[in-house]
């Protein structure tokens, strides 16, 4: 049976590397999703999720409720991502093509995928940040409504509503060629 977040946090406080590795495995992708929801830039999201996780481990004693480690961690991610936006806005213009995987089969496919990512990120940029977090955690990371509600500190009904509106608006934006006038 999987150890709970609280058990893992207590182990990390005792210096247990394995427990830290388990938390990393459990949350790094979600951290990246939240960082992407805030920054809108994949390279920045990578940096933020990594730094935030290290900071969380360094300040693990400050996590007042170890059972809510996920919520606490994602708040660190959000804060760091927002700080990055405030302090380093120029860097956000990095082209997504810079992060194109080297292992893609052909230049044409790479361009196609890059365009798809740009369209998705462009569409995401047009919906509220909290809607972006919800849809990325649900549709990309596969979290359940309840998990998202607990870790974002929202009522489950609100999560469902955000997800519904986010999907509807994203679809409309993508169908309309990337812009939505409302």
């Amino acid at each position, binding site marked *: 049976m999987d150890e709970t977040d609280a058990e893992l946090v207590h182990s990390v406080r005792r*210096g247990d590397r394995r427990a830290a590795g388990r938390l990393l495995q459990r949350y790094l992708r979600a951290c990246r999703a939240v960082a992407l929801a805030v920054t809108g830039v994949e390279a920045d999201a990578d940096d933020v999720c990594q730094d935030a996780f290290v900071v969380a481990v360094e300040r693990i004693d400050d996590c007042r409720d170890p059972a809510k480690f996920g919520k606490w961690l994602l708040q660190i991610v959000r804060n760091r991502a927002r700080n990055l936006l405030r302090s380093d806005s120029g860097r956000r213009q990095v082209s997504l093509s810079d992060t194109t995987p080297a292992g893609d089969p052909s230049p044409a496919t790479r361009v196609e995928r890059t365009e798809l990512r740009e369209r998705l990120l462009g569409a995401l940029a047009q919906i509220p940040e909290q809607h972006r977090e919800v849809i990325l955690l649900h549709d990309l990371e596969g979290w359940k409504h309840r998990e998202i509600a607990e870790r974002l500190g929202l009522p489950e009904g609100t999560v469902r509503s955000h997800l519904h509106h986010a999907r509807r608006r994203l679809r409309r934006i993508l169908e309309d060629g990337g812009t939505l006038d409302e």
Partner: protein
Amino acid sequence: MSDLERMDLSALDPARDPEHWSRLTETTRLRIEASLESRRGTPKVLDILAAWHRPILAAAAVLALAFGLADAAISARGGALDGASGARRLAALSDNSLGRGLRPTGTELMIALKARSAR
């Protein structure tokens, strides 16, 4: 409210480039381990107090020994002073007796010495 179908966001999946994602995960893991290592090396308040325990006891033992030696030295000095005053009393007794043309008797000498040890 109808729940719309899940959207395909796989183009944003960080693991679409497994090498990059694996490198990022590994770098994060190493940084966390380094942090845990330095955490082990950073003593907490209780650890610091515990670490002081032994030196404090050692210092207390040294001080106790020093005080003991000083006390013994002072006592020894006090004994010498007692001896000097006893000698003075014996000298005074002898002087007094000789002044009267007499020798101090054994009883008088014993009384003078007892007077010294009684101090």
